[in-house]
């Protein structure tokens, strides 16, 4: 049964990693990275590494995405300048 959990978690991690790379807007990427952090934490728990899971949880699901969000906010504050923003806001629905 542990094996089944590990396989599902592995596939979840692979999917989350792919989604994190394919989301080109850093604002969206930050939330996917936070999901990836949690998925990795689950995988590490199933691999009997709760210490590493704790570490990954705190860093991957909170600190890294938060810093990315803050950088995005800083970088995009100056109005009307060309950023590397390649997703217009309206595309999301």
């Amino acid at each position: 049964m542990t094996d089944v959990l590990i396989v599902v978690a592995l596939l979840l991690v692979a999917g989350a990693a792919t989604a994190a790379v394919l989301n080109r807007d850093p604002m969206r990427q930050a939330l996917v990275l936070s999901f990836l952090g949690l998925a990795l934490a689950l995988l590490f728990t199933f691999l009997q590494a709760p210490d590493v899971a704790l570490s990954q949880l705190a860093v991957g699901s909170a600190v890294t995405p938060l810093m990315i969000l803050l950088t995005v906010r800083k970088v995009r504050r100056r109005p009307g300048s060309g950023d590397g923003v390649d997703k217009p806001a309206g595309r999301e629905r």
Partner: protein
Amino acid sequence: MSPRVRLWVFLVGAAGFAALFAAACLDLPAFGTVPHPYGVRAVHAALSHHTANVIASVNFDLRAFDTLGEESILFSAVIGTVVLLRQARDEHRKDPEPATVHPPVRRFALLTLPFALLVGLYVIAHGQISPGGGFQGGVVAATALHLLYIAADYRALERVRPLTLYEIGEAAGEAAYVITGLAAVLAGSAFLANVLPFGTLATLSSGGTAMVLNAAVGLEVTSGIVVLLARFLDQAVEIEEPGEGGGSPRDTRDSGGNGDDERERA
């Protein structure tokens, strides 16, 4: 290099890597079958030093010198970030506008804050007994402090967060680690050797110097992450470049969420 050429170079490299990596994987022992001689020895060494959490023992006892290196990377990375994100001469500070927070959110955050700090300290303190330790607990405690940013707002956070204190705390953590190592030399042993009494397995005071080093790392990581987040928050919320117009940063935001948000309000 044009993007097209770069992509081709990547594809060729990736194909090569994939082929070699897959071949290597097929040659590896199957997942979860082989015992590791070093792992077995590490477990014996940790138990002989009365440390219940073998991972903490590896980090702070068997490979303590290695962790000193890791800690120094962390230390210098934080210093580098602080230098890069300091307020330049042509930038000016402006007070962020106070935000109003919905009462349930504020109440929840204020109630959770002390509790979350406590969880962080618990994770640090129980490093040598249960899963946890200075590295993980430090991050939890530092993130917990930023609950205040939601609970009240940025200015309240600045008031309870004397940044200098955390900068000193970070340096003190690093220094404490080195001093503990040197103390072992003074006691007539090797640098970072475990010279303190080992205590009883699975109690708070077990593990000898592992416990002290764990606390030093906890102090450094907590302070380091708080300083990092503070610098980023400063840049994002307070510091303005000369070209930027006045007004609140929220007005000039250009995030992916903006368009949808307007529509939702309409």
